[in-house]
C-alpha cells in the first residue's frame, strides 16, 4: 500500500483528479457559457425574463411573483424562456442582428445615454462667454415688432361692406380736417369686439385681433398724427391712427441674460457629447470605397 502511494503514476493521476474536481466545482458556468448548445435556467435568469416581459423593472415584486408560481406556471415560464433563448441564439448565429435597424437604434440609444453621463461638464459660465454667445446667436433673442395705435370701427354685421367702407371714408375726411386726437377715438364709430387702443402690443397679438392682412397694413403706416384707412378686418372696416411702430429688435443682453445662460449650458453639454463621440471616432479609420451603384440611375 505504501508502495502504491509512492507510485508516481498514481500520484500524478490523483493530482489530475483533484484539478478536475476543483475546475468543475469552481468554474462550471464559464465552461458552459462557451458551449452555445447549453441553456442555463435558474431564478436569476427567470427573474430577468419576467421583468423584461412585464416591462416593469421591479426586482422585489418580480421575486414575489416568481416565488408564488405553482409548478405548472413555472414550467410554462421556463419553456417560454427556453424558446426565447433558442430563437435569439439561432438568430445571432444566422447574423440577423447585424443589419437590423431596430437593434441598431437601441444600441445607439444606450450608447448615447452613457455618453451623456460622461459629458456632464461643469456649469460655470464666464461673462465673456456670455457676450460671445449672445453676439453669435442674436437672431434667437429677437424681440417681436410692437405697435401703439387706436382705431374707429365700422361693423359689417348690420351693413354691407360697401356701406361700411363709404361711411368710413366719409368720416376719415372729417377726422383729419378737424384734427381729432388719439384719445377721442372712442367718440366715433362702433364698439369693437376687442380693444380700442393698442399700447405697445406685440404683432402676434394684433394679428390675433385683426387678422394677418390688416396687421401688415397697420405696420406699414407712418406715425404722423393723421388718421388712415379704411383698413379691412374679418369683422368690418377700420380707421387707424398710429402713434409708434417699433420694428423687430435685438434686446439688451441684461434683458435676456437668464435665457442665454440656460442655452449656453445646453450648448456646452451638446459640445461635450460631440467631443466624447470625437474621441471614440479617433479609434476608427474611415475608408471610402468605390461605389457599387451609380446614384441617379435606377438599379
Amino acid at each position, binding site marked *: 500500500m505504501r508502495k502504491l502511494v509512492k507510485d508516481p503514476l498514481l500520484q500524478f493521476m490523483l493530482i489530475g483528479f483533484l484539478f478536475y474536481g476543483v475546475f468543475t466545482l469552481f468554474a462550471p458556468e464559464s465552461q458552459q457559457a462557451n458551449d452555445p448548445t447549453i441553456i442555463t435556467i435558474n431564478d436569476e435568469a427567470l427573474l430577468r425574463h419576467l421583468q423584461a416581459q412585464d416591462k*416593469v*423593472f*421591479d426586482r422585489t415584486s418580480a421575486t414575489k411573483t416568481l416565488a408564488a408560481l405553482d409548478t405548472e406556471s413555472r414550467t410554462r415560464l421556463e419553456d417560454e424562456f427556453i424558446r426565447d433563448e433558442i430563437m435569439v441564439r439561432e438568430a445571432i448565429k444566422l447574423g440577423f442582428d447585424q443589419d437590423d435597424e431596430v437593434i441598431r437604434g437601441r444600441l445607439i440609444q444606450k450608447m448615447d445615454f452613457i455618453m451623456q453621463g460622461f459629458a456632464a461638464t461643469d456649469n460655470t459660465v464666464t461673462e465673456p462667454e456670455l457676450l460671445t454667445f449672445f453676439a453669435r446667436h442674436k437672431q434667437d433673442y429677437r424681440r417681436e415688432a410692437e405697435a401703439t395705435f387706436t382705431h374707429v370701427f365700422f*361693423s359689417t354685421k348690420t351693413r354691407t361692406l360697401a356701406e361700411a367702407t363709404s361711411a368710413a371714408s366719409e368720416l376719415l375726411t372729417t377726422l383729419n380736417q378737424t384734427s381729432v386726437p388719439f384719445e377721442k377715438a*372712442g367718440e366715433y*364709430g*362702433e*364698439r369693437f*369686439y*376687442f*380693444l*380700442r*387702443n393698442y*399700447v405697445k402690443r406685440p404683432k*402676434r*397679438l394684433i394679428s*390675433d*385681433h385683426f387678422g394677418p392682412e390688416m396687421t401688415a397694413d397697420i405696420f406699414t403706416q407712418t406715425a404722423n398724427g393723421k388718421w388712415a384707412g379704411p383698413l379691412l378686418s374679418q*369683422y368690418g372696416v377700420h380707421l387707424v391712427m398710429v402713434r409708434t411702430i417699433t420694428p423687430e429688435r435685438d434686446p439688451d443682453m441684461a434683458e435676456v441674460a*437668464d*435665457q442665454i445662460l*440656460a442655452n449656453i449650458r445646453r450648448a456646452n453639454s451638446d459640445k461635450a457629447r460631440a467631443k466624447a463621440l470625437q474621441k471614440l471616432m479617433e479609434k476608427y479609420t474611415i475608408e471610402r470605397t468605390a461605389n457599387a451603384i451609380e446614384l441617379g440611375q435606377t438599379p
Partner: protein
Amino acid sequence: MKLPYILGFGTALACSAGAWAETGEATNLYWGDTHLHTSYSFDAFLAGNKTADPDTAYRWAKGQPVIHPYNRTRVQLARPLDFLVVADHAELMGVIRSVHRGEAELPDMSLWGSLKRWVAVKVLNSKLEDDTAGEIFLDLLPKDMAVPEGDPVQDANNQLPGQRFGDTRGIEQIAWNEIVDAAERHNTPGSFTSFVGWEWSSIPTGANLHRVVFSPNGGDVAKKYLPYGSDDSQYPEDLWTWLETTSADTGAEFMAIPHNSNISKGYMFQETTLKGVPITADYAKTRVRWEPVVEITQTKGDSETHPAFSPDDEFANFEHYPYYIQNVKDARPYEARRGDFIRPALGTGLKMEQKVGTNPYKFGVIGSTDSHSALSSSDEDNFWGKMGRDSTPESKRQFGIGRGGVTGWNMAAQGLAAVWAVENSRDAIFAAFKRREVYGTTGPRMRVRFFGGWGFDALDEQQSNLSEVGYKGGVPMGGDLTRPADASATPQFLIQATKDPAGHNLDRVQMVKGWLGEDGEPRETIYNVAWSGEREIDGGGKLPAIGDTVDRQTGLTLNSIGVPELVTLWADPDFNPDQRAFYYVRVLQIPTARHSLLDGIALQTTAPEEGPAVLQERAYTSAIWYTP
C-alpha cells in the same frame, strides 16, 4: 387682509386714468393660472418631471420656448399668460428632487431609521432610473375610509404619509427659498406678475380637501415662514388659524383656493364642518375671509355641477372626473355628492346664511390647470398632459396604471383664470381676487363682462362704453345686490361676452339662478339670455343645439356657426324680493375638438372613448348675490 378690501376700489378709482389709456375701461382683463406644479412637487418628480423647475414654469408662461421635462421636445405657449402662481405641494417640497440629485443633507436618524431610509433612497433612485417611479406614488395613496360619512381625519384607515426620509424641513426650506427667488426674478409689474404660493394637500382617506395658498408679498416676507402642509394638520380650520397667526407675525397676506371639490367625497362644501359639527357664524366668517375664490374647473375635471343635482341642465354632463385619489384596492366606487359641486354649494351657502347669518360659500370662481409638468397648458391643441409622463398621444394611453384605469385622456385640457384688475401687478390682481371680480374658463380666452343693477336703460347694443355703464349703474361679478327702495323693482343684468380673439365663435349666454325656496331648500333655473342665429326657444324652455362644424378627419373647426359677440340686458322675470338668490353667467363656445380626438387622429385610430370627440368650451363668471 383688511387693506386690499378697502384699497381695492380706492385704487380702482385712483388708477383708472392709467387703465383708460389702454382700453378706455376702468379694469383690464388679465389671464393666468393659480395652480401649477414643478419638479419641486414630489408627485410631479415621480411621474416624469425631473427637470422643469419654477424657472421653466415662468419662462413657458411668458411665451418663451422650453424643453418638455419628459419627452424632451421644444414646447411653447403661443399666447403668454399675464400672471402665474407656482404652487408646489408643501409636503416633501423639493425633497424627492434633492434626494435624487444627491444634494440632500438628510438629518441624523436612529440606526434602524437610517437603514430604512437608505433602502428608501435606493429604491427611489432605481425606480426613477427605470421610469417606474409612479409606483411609489401609488404606495403613498390614501386608503378608502372604514366608516363612510364620518370625520375622515379620525377614520381608522387614515394615515399621514410616513416620514421615511426623517425630518426634511431643512431641505424644504432650501426648496422654498429657491421657489421664492424664482418668483422674484420673474415679477415685472405691468407685463408679467408672479406670485409665491404652495398647495396644502390634505386628503384624509381619499377625500380631496386640497387648497392652493398664495400671497401677494415679496420674497423678504415669504422667507419668514415655511409653507403649512397637511403633514402639519389635515383640518382646514387649522390652516386658517395658521394663516391668521402667520399673517399677524410676518405681515404676509394670504388667500386659500379650494379645488377638485368634485373628488372630495362630499366633504368640501358640507352643511357641517369636517368634524361633523354644525356650521356657526364664526366658522362661516373665517372660511369666507380666507377662501373668497374656488377653482371651478381644471385638468382633473369640472366641478360646476353634476346631472344628479342639475337634471334639467343639458350641459351639466361635462368633463367629469369620477376617480378619487386613493388606493383602488377595496375602495368604494365614485359617487357624486352635493358637497362636491359649486352650484349646489352656492345654494347651500344661501341656506347656511338663512340659518346662521353668514354665508360660508359666498365665493367667486376661476379655472386653473393643476398641471404637474411646469407647463400651464389648457389649449386642446397644445395640451401637455397632467403629469410629465402623459404628454404624448402614446403615453397618454398608459398613464396611471393601477389608479382605477385612469388614462391621460380622462384628463381635461383646462382651465384658465380671468381677472378684471386695474393693472397687471401683485396688489391689483390680489385685490381683484379679494373682491371676486374674477371668472374661469375651460381654456379659451373669452372676454365676459357681467354687471347687476336696478336702473340700467334699455341697451343700445352698439354703445361703446358698456363697462362704464356697468360700473356706474351697478355692481360687477362678485358683488352684492340688496332690496331696493322701489318695492316693485326687478334686478337687471348687463352681460357682454366676446369670443377668444384667436379662437372660435360663441353659441349662447346663459344665466344660472339659484334661490332659496319657501321650504328653505335651494333651487335652480337656467335661462338662455342671448344666442347666435335664428334659433327659437321651444315649449320646454330649451334652445336647440347649435350644431357642429368639427371635421373629424382633421380636428379643425369651421367658424361658420356662432357669433363673435353676444350682448344683452336681462331682467329676472321670476324675481321674488323676499328670496335670497345668486346669479352667474355661463358662456358656451361652438363645439371644437377635444385633445383626445386630436390624439386619435394622430395615432390613426378612432377617437379614444374617454370623453367625447368634441366639446363646448365655456366660461363661468363669479356670481352676483341678492340678499333681501
